[in-house]
Structure formats: structure tokens, C-alpha cells
């Protein structure tokens, strides 16, 4: 299945794109193994058709969307975003998708909804059973973060549907946060009142905060976040505040202590 037509986006960077091969062979998708090469080897076992996403919780019109519906929900855009992994490497990836805000609008969030929880696919028959993280993998955003125009619900990569190892058939892309915030292979999106307990936060709360905004000044307890290696390059480059998206997103965190809310 191919993607419908899509348009370029003014939010795209003009930086050199990371080659497709690197984007599809160097992945963190722990359900398929914890080595970078594991997802490319094992994710083929996942069947992504049919696929539905339940959008539920504190919503006026909760409902379930099929992938075909998501593809038609709003005009698709190509967004070429920087991706910064918490491990200290980065890529430039051309995603295709729609703003998450467009989906959330469909279900009419209630006033009591403060956060959005993302639950991802977990099938122990084909995925890791060892409790490396608490499965299913859960991520979360504050509602205003989820509704931000940069927050993308990605359905494609490099002009084609998402490869399984990149989170097919539908994943989140939040470019100003460390990569693990962008949950893959999403099955449910819940509007909730309380801050969701995310998988990495449960695994090591002192290392992976709820916000996990890219921030060169706040070191991971075990390594510095001041620099990063762009995949394909040898020398490291300085990491940018909010991964270079500060102009658009810094307002979301006005008055917040980003050292305490890491």
C-alpha cells in the first residue's frame, strides 16, 4: 500500500537527510530486541494490517480509527525533522503524516483532559518477553504539547509507508524531545487528567523525566547531552536547545524550571 499525495511543509529543515538505509537499520524498538540492528531483523513478524487506533478517555466523541481513515483525515505533509536520541546520536528524517492536533480535534477533548497517553502494540508471541521495560510501551505528552503544530502523527517515511522497524503503521514524532518520547506502532491514544506513567520514566525516573525535552544543559546522569553525533558524520556537533525547535516550542515551558522538569 502506498501513501496518498502529500505536500511539503514549512516546518521542514533543509539539512542533509540521513540515508534511508541508516534510518531503517539503526533503530531503538526494544520490543524487537535491544541491539540497534534487532528491529530491522525482527520487526517483519509484526502484521500491520488491519490496524486500528482507539482514541478514548476524556473526549466528547471517542472513537476508533482505521489506518485508511487516518490517511484521509487531514492533508498529509512531509516533515523533514531532526531526531535526537537520548543516547547522543541524531538523524534528519523525512516523515510523512498529519498533525496530531487534527486527530485530537475529531474526538473533542473535554476540559478535564490535561495529558495524552500513547499505548503501543505489544504481542508477546513475536516481541521481547523479558521485562526490560514495562510492556506495553507507554508514552505521554501534556495536552498542549500534543496539540502543538510540530507534533506529528507519522504514517510514512521517505515517501512510502512506515517500515515496521520505524513504528508502522502509525507513530508519534515529537521533534523537540528525545526520540523515545515518539512512541511507535500506536494502538491507543487516551485523553487523561493525570500525568501518564511512561515506560522509561518507570524504568529509571532519575534518568528519563516526563518532559525529556532535548536540552544540552541538562546532562543525563550517565553521559553529557551537550553534543551529539549526526549519523553519517564522524565529529560531534553541539546539541541545540529543544533540538533547534526553540522558536516554536519554548513558549510551552515559560516559567518552568527545565532542570527540575527534565
Amino acid at each position, binding site marked *: 500500500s502506498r501513501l496518498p499525495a502529500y505536500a511539503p511543509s514549512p516546518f521542514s529543515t533543509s539539512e542533509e537527510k540521513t540515508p534511508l538505509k541508516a534510518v531503517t537499520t539503526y533503530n531503538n524498538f526494544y520490543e524487537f530486541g535491544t541491539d540497534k540492528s534487532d528491529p530491522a531483523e525482527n520487526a517483519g513478524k509484526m502484521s500491520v494490517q488491519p490496524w486500528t487506533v482507539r482514541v478514548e478517555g476524556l473526549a466528547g466523541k471517542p472513537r476508533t480509527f482505521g489506518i485508511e481513515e487516518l490517511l484521509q483525515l487531514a492533508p498529509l505533509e512531509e516533515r523533514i525533522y531532526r531526531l535526537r536520541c537520548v543516547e547522543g*546520536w541524531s538523524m534528519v528524517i523525512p516523515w510523512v503524516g498529519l498533525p496530531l492536533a487534527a486527530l485530537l480535534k475529531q474526538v473533542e477533548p473535554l476540559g478535564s483532559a490535561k495529558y495524552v497517553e500513547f499505548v503501543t502494540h505489544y504481542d508477546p508471541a513475536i516481541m521481547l518477553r523479558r521485562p526490560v521495560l514495562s510492556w506495553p510501551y507507554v508514552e505521554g505528552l501534556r495536552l498542549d504539547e500534543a496539540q502543538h503544530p510540530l507534533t506529528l502523527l507519522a504514517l510514512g517515511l521517505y515517501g512510502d509507508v512506515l517500515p515496521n522497524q520505524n513504528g508502522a503503521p502509525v507513530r508519534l514524532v515529537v521533534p523537540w524531545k528525545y526520540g523515545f518520547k515518539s512512541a511507535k506502532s500506536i494502538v491507543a491514544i487516551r485523553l487523561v487528567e493525570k500525568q501518564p506513567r511512561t515506560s522509561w520514566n518507570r524504568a529509571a525516573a532519575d534518568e528519563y523525566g516526563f518532559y525529556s525535552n532535548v536540552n544540552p544543559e541538562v*546532562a543525563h546522569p*550517565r553521559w*553529557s547531552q551537550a553534543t551529539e553525533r549526526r549519523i553519517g558524520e564522524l565529529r560531534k556537533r553541539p546539541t541545540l536547545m529543544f533540538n533547534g525547535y526553540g522558536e516554536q516550542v519554548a513558549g510551552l515551558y515559560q516559567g518552568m524550571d527545565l532542570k527540575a522538569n527534565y
Partner: protein
Amino acid sequence: MASIEREKPLKPSLRTPPAAAITAIKLLVFLLCLLPALQLLLGWQADTLGANPVETITHASGTWTLRLLLITLAVTPLRRLTGLHWLLRLRRMLGLFAFAWGLAHFATYLWLDQFFDWAAIAADILKRPFITVGFAALVLMLPLALTSNRLAVRRLGGRRWQALHRSTYAIAILGVVHFWWLVKADVLEPAIYALVLAALLGMRAWWRELERRRQLAAAVPQARGNGRVVRIVPK
């Protein structure tokens, strides 16, 4: 090295291969220890080390340091379990290769990872416990590498030499801790190294305990008279 072993003198036996065979085995082990380096070099040239070749080299050199440390520590138990005393003749080379891989690991970090950014390197060593621990292990390996020759054994004397080289136990522990602390969530691999190390050190502790008991038992007949046991081997 053979001169410092206190247990049994190395007697040529049916199980000891002829000198030429031992030389051949040594050469083979030498080449095997170098093989991963050749693979990395060729992989670098051919760009087959994956999307992040620096990471691949860092991990491979670290893994081989740890593996060679454990293999070095396996020589004594293997020798004891199999009676193949000639294995001891491989130990110095294995230990030196562990050090060489440790140096390669550190050099990769200094050069390809940090590009000699000394401020960042100093901050890493001081502030990041897993790097502190790894660095400490490397520093502790240095005196062992420097005293790995016969002259040093003679100068230090067998006992002192052996006492110094027992720091290999600490180095291996630091190496496993370094690996454990670096992993994000999946500790399976470091746990395997930890188990192997625990077995290798556990065997030594157990044999030491047996030896203590043996000496104690030998001392019991005299001690029975006044009910006191004189400890010969410290616990």
C-alpha cells in the same frame, strides 16, 4: 611466569604437547586475539560497521577487553580442572591482549568519540561513574602490563608479583561494573559477564577454603588436647 606458581612444578607429562606444538598454539592464540581488530579495520574501510561505526568500534573493543580478562582469569581454574598445566604459558599473552584491547577502547573514546576534547574527557572521567570505573580499570592494568616480563618477576619476587597481579580480580570486577552501568535498561549481556566472573572468582574462593580446611584438619590432632584450633590459613 611459570616460576611463581607455588603448587606443583611444571613437569613434562603425556598431556603436555611438545614445545613446537605449544609455539604453534601460541601463534594461533595471538592471531585469534588480533582477528577482531582486523575485522574492524576492514569493516571501517568497506563501511560495513553499521550506521554508527564509532559506536561499533567502541563496543567491540570494550567487549574484547572484558572477554580477554575473563579468559585470562579462566586459565588457572581450567588448568586445575583439566590438569593441562601448559595452559599457563598462554596467560601472559592473553593478559597483555586484554590490556591492548583496553588501550584500543580508550583510544577510540579519546580520538573518535571525543576528538581529544580534554575538558569533556576530564568531566566524563570525574563526573560519570561508569567512565570513572572503566578508566580506573585501565589504569590498574598498566602496572600489570609493565611487570609482565621475567625480569619484573625476578625483581619483585614471586610472592609480591603474584599479590600485585591478583589485582586482575578487581580489574575484571570494575570492567563488568563499567559495562553494567553503561547499559540503558537491558542488563542481560552484562549479567552474563558478571555470572562468568562470579564463577571464576568463586572457584578460587572455594579452593582457598578447601585448602584452609585441609590445613586445619592436619592441625586438629595436636589441637584436640586443649580444644583450641590454630588457624593456619587466614579466613
